[in-house]
Every structure is written in structure tokens, then in C-alpha cells.
């Protein structure tokens, strides 16, 4: 009985504290996760950096999200890919799939490397991160299509794409290709590693899709003047 009364006398505190909301007072500054910035000695700071440091000592700072780390192995492109793979907010599974993919790619390449004759060894790329970035570059479209209405009809007009949009399209195509067009019983990391290795050597379905988009844009050149921006 005494426990319930003391429970009522305590001030109410919520059981769950949300540490980082996405809406902050604009007064708050962004956190700086990189370690190199803090190792610059006092004498070598530029005037802007000195001003920034003074500002940071008086203003409050937003809490850092779980995905940013000060680790040397942090890769923003890979984090974006993980977020796009994620379903229902389950980042652990998505991150696990990506790490297994990287391991699988590296295993295949290193095995090939060790079995190759001396002359061919230099051509085999074993770094899974280099393969991932190069494969993504090979999948990025240069030009895109937009649906523009003119005179009651809709025309597919070729438009330039921003860097973010290109990266998004490459990642989206890669993920949908692996989810839909592969054999049902193969695991996701196996499908992804096969597709990434193919894209690295400019083969495979994703690169084909990029080429088809380019061809469509080329064939619709005549409507390019419908774009007004």
C-alpha cells in the first residue's frame, strides 16, 4: 500500500525518452562526428573555424543519430544503401545483409585472386567497397525522363538529373532487381553480390536497364524543348 502512495507522490516522468526528434529549434547546431576536426591544434585553425568553435561553445547541439559514427570505416553511400534496403525500420537485418554481401564478394574475388596465375593477379579487384562504388557508378543513369503534359497528351521528355536522384535511381534499381527478378530460394546477399559483381564489369540487368533508359531518352530527343527549366 505504501508503494502505491509513494508512486503517486513522485513527479511523473515518461517511461520512454525520445532523444532525437527530427524537429529541433533552429537554434540547435549539427553535431560533428569526424575525429580529424578535433585534432587540429589551436594555431592551425582558420578564422572561420575559430568562429565556429566559439559558436559551438555557447549554442546547444542536436543529438547524433545512430547511423553516424566517428569510425574510420563509416561510409555515407553504404549507409544510404542500407537505409533503402531496410523494411519496417529493421536496420539490423539490412546491415547484416550488406555485411554478408561485402564478405561474399570479397570471398569470391580473393579465391579467384589466389588461384590466378601471377600475371593476372593485378587485374582482379578484391576490395568489396571499391567494387560496390564502381558498380553503383556503372548503374547511374546520365539522363532521365519526365512526364510533361502538353496539349492534352503526356510526353516522355528527357531531362537532366541531379546527383542525388541518379544515386537514388541506381540503388533503387539494384534493390528491386535483386528482390524481384531472381530465383526465389537464393538468399538476398547472394543475389546482391552476383548483381554487384556483374555491374562492376558492366554486365547484368541493372546496367541493361540504364542503357534502355538512355535509348528512350535518345529516341525522344525531339520533345526536349518541352522542358522549360
Amino acid at each position: 500500500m505504501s508503494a502505491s502512495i509513494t508512486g503517486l507522490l513522485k513527479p511523473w516522468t515518461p517511461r520512454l525518452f525520445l532523444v532525437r526528434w527530427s524537429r529541433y529549434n533552429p537554434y540547435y547546431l549539427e553535431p560533428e562526428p569526424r575525429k580529424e576536426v578535433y585534432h587540429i591544434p589551436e594555431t592551425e585553425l582558420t578564422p572561420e573555424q575559430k568562429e565556429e568553435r566559439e559558436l559551438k561553445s555557447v549554442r546547444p547541439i542536436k543529438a547524433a543519430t545512430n547511423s553516424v559514427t566517428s569510425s574510420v570505416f563509416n561510409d555515407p553511400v553504404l549507409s544510404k544503401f542500407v537505409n533503402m534496403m531496410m523494411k519496417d525500420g529493421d536496420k539490423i537485418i539490412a546491415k547484416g545483409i550488406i555485411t554478408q554481401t561485402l564478405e561474399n564478394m570479397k570471398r569470391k574475388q580473393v579465391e579467384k585472386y589466389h588461384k590466378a596465375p601471377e600475371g593476372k593477379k593485378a587485374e582482379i579487384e578484391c576490395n568489396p567497397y571499391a567494387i560496390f562504388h564502381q558498380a553503383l557508378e556503372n548503374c547511374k543513369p546520365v539522363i532521365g525522363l519526365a512526364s510533361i503534359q502538353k496539349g492534352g497528351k503526356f510526353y516522355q521528355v528527357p531531362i537532366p538529373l541531379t546527383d542525388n536522384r541518379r544515386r537514388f535511381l541506381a540503388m533503387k534499381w539494384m534493390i528491386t532487381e535483386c528482390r524481384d527478378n531472381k530465383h526465389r530460394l537464393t538468399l538476398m546477399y547472394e543475389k546482391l553480390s552476383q548483381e554487384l559483381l556483374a555491374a562492376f564489369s558492366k554486365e547484368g540487368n541493372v546496367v541493361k536497364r540504364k542503357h534502355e533508359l538512355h535509348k528512350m531518352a535518345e529516341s525522344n530527343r525531339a520533345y526536349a524543348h518541352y522542358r522549360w527549366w
Partner: protein
Amino acid sequence: MALHRLSFRLRQTVAQVRPLHGSGCGQQQEAVGMELETRPETLSIFRTQENDPACQSEQHLGQYYTVPPSHFHTVFPHGLPPRYQQQVKTFNEGCVMVRQPALELISHLKRADYSKPTMRYLLYGVKGSGKTMSLCHTVHYCSTQGWLVLHIPDAHLWVKNCKELLPSSYHASRFDQPIQASNWLRNFRTTNEHFLSKIKLRQRYVWTKRESTEEGRPLGELVDMGVSRVKSSSDVVGAVLKELRLQAGGTEGGFRLAVAVDGVNGLWGRTTLKKEDKSPVAPEELTLVHNLRKMINNDWCGGAVIATLSQTGSLYAPSSAYLPQELLGEEGFDSMDPFVPVPVSLYSEKEFESCYLYYLDRHWLQHPHSRTEEGKKELIFLSNRNPSVLERLCAFL
């Protein structure tokens, strides 16, 4: 407390450990050195040319030795951890690190008196510290010394996930596991080919009304029968174990028997198997477990029992448990008692350096930052020098 006292008493019976400096091994080293002199000098920091476990000593601690490819499929058809098997396939070579627990075990085996009852050695340590690899190193030593090796890769596999549980024909209340027994017999045959024709049976075994194996037949016939007649394979396993136990310490044509059991804590405890009326099966009601327990008893001589504790495959054990008392339980501890405990610790600084250099040499650490000092510090911090955690981290870096 009791464990410490018993091990102390046992340590006095086993002779002192001294490093071996055999002249024969030195000659072997020179010969191998001649072939590989084209390799640059930096490799020799973490690699050693001494591929024979008998000649390895404390000066080789922390260095990797290569298991010759010819030995691989005969000595280790089933004993190695699955991630290590993948690593061997990727690197195109099998390298094992020479570590303190394995060297200690090998020196005990060299110095033991084989006319006395068998010594039991128990490797224990936290998850991922290298117990199974130390066991495999010791098994390689026993193999190269010409011992008969009885390697049970994981005793937990016999007490869980059994699709077919037949009631035993030999004993009414026991259960047979045909698939597991025949698999094990097949691997046993691969490991010990040369012994199978030499050992003769000392007793007549009757399997059914029409089938029996006479006295004096070679052991190979018994094993072949067990592999082909899957139904009686568990009883064949029991017969094989009994014959080996009787003949191990024999003076005429005597061989030494090494019983290597991984995950020995699975033999005592609970199983996840159920009888037809949904009541749980106790481990002693399984023929394989019953016979293996008789093997682990120290009532025979002429060999050694080397066992490993394992929490990873164990049933109904908390994940933080790693000490013998916790994992074996009362019954298990009383059966294993007295034994020589061999603790397996995480990598020391020297061993970590060696492992890091090995991965660099095999082109396994590909991330550009992992080759820097900061990346190395981060690897030490994240893995806490735990061998299996380090391996998993380096896999995707």
C-alpha cells in the same frame, strides 16, 4: 575451489613441460627453408616453416604453420569449425596458429605414461577463444604421430535435431540414431584407413538372425557393415568403441588411442528429443551417448581423452557460461573428474599482431583504412582480441 585443488594434484603427477629442441626437426627446417627461400623475409614474422606439430615449441608461439594439403582431407573430414573451412577454401591453404593451450596439451601427451589409466584433458574458455582450433591442432599432432584418432566433431549434434529415432534392438529402453551414427562411421573410416585392416576383433558380434561378424575379422569390415546397414549403425559404433578400448593399451601391435570430443558438455544435461508419447529423452537413453560416456571413463589405458566445452551448440545453458562447473553440471563434472583443465584465453598482443599480418598477407583486409594504425586500434577495440569476433569483423572490412 575443488577444481583448483584437483588440478593441482594432477599437475604433480604429469611431468614438467619443457620445450623440445630435436635435431631431427632442425634438419627438416633447413630442407623446407631451401625451397621457400624466394619468399621475402617479412613473411617469417608470422609464419613458421615448422609444419610438424611434434617439433613446434615455445619459440613458434603466435606463428602460423601450414597443414599440408594431403593431410587435410584425411585428418579433418569433419572436425573443423565451418567458418574456418570457408577460410581454407578462400585462401587456398590451411594455416593454424601455434598457441599456448595446444602446445601445453601436446607436451602433456608427449610426457604422459600410457600404462596408467587414461588422462582426461578439458579445454575451456569464453566463446570464440579458439578451443576447437586448439583441439584440431592436437588432433593433427596425434595423427602425425600415428595414433588412432576418434574425433567426435560436436557431441551436441547427437542430442538435438534428430529426425529418426529408432528404438534400439540391443537394449529395450534405449534409442538409436542411424543417420548420425552412419555419418560418423564414414568420417571415421576416412581418418583411420590404415588402422582398419590391422586391428582384429576379439569377440563375435551378432546383428540379426542371419548376420554376424566373427572373431578375428578386421575392424574395417565392421565399419563397412555399419555404413551400409544404417539400421544397426549405432550398435556398430558401440562395438567399435568397445574393441578400441580393449585393444588400445595392448603390448602386441598396440596403438595409442586419442578420443577427441568437441562440446563434451552435451553428453550430460538435457536433450531436445522426444519419445512418441512426447516425454523428453534423457541422454543416457541414447545408444551413442551411452557408449561415448563409457569411452570417456578412465577405466582403460593406452591413450588420452581430449575434450572441449562449448556453449554455442549447447541446450538450456546460459550464454555467459563458460566454466567447466557451469557447463558440465554436477553429473558431468563427477564423471569427468579428475581431469586436467586447459584454459584457452583470447589473443595476446603478439598473437593479435600475427593474425593481423596474416590477414594482410592473404589480401583479406581490403578496406584502405583497415591497413592504418587507427583502423588497427579500432579493430582491437571492437573485437577485444577475441579470435572469432575479429574474424567476423575482418570478413567484411
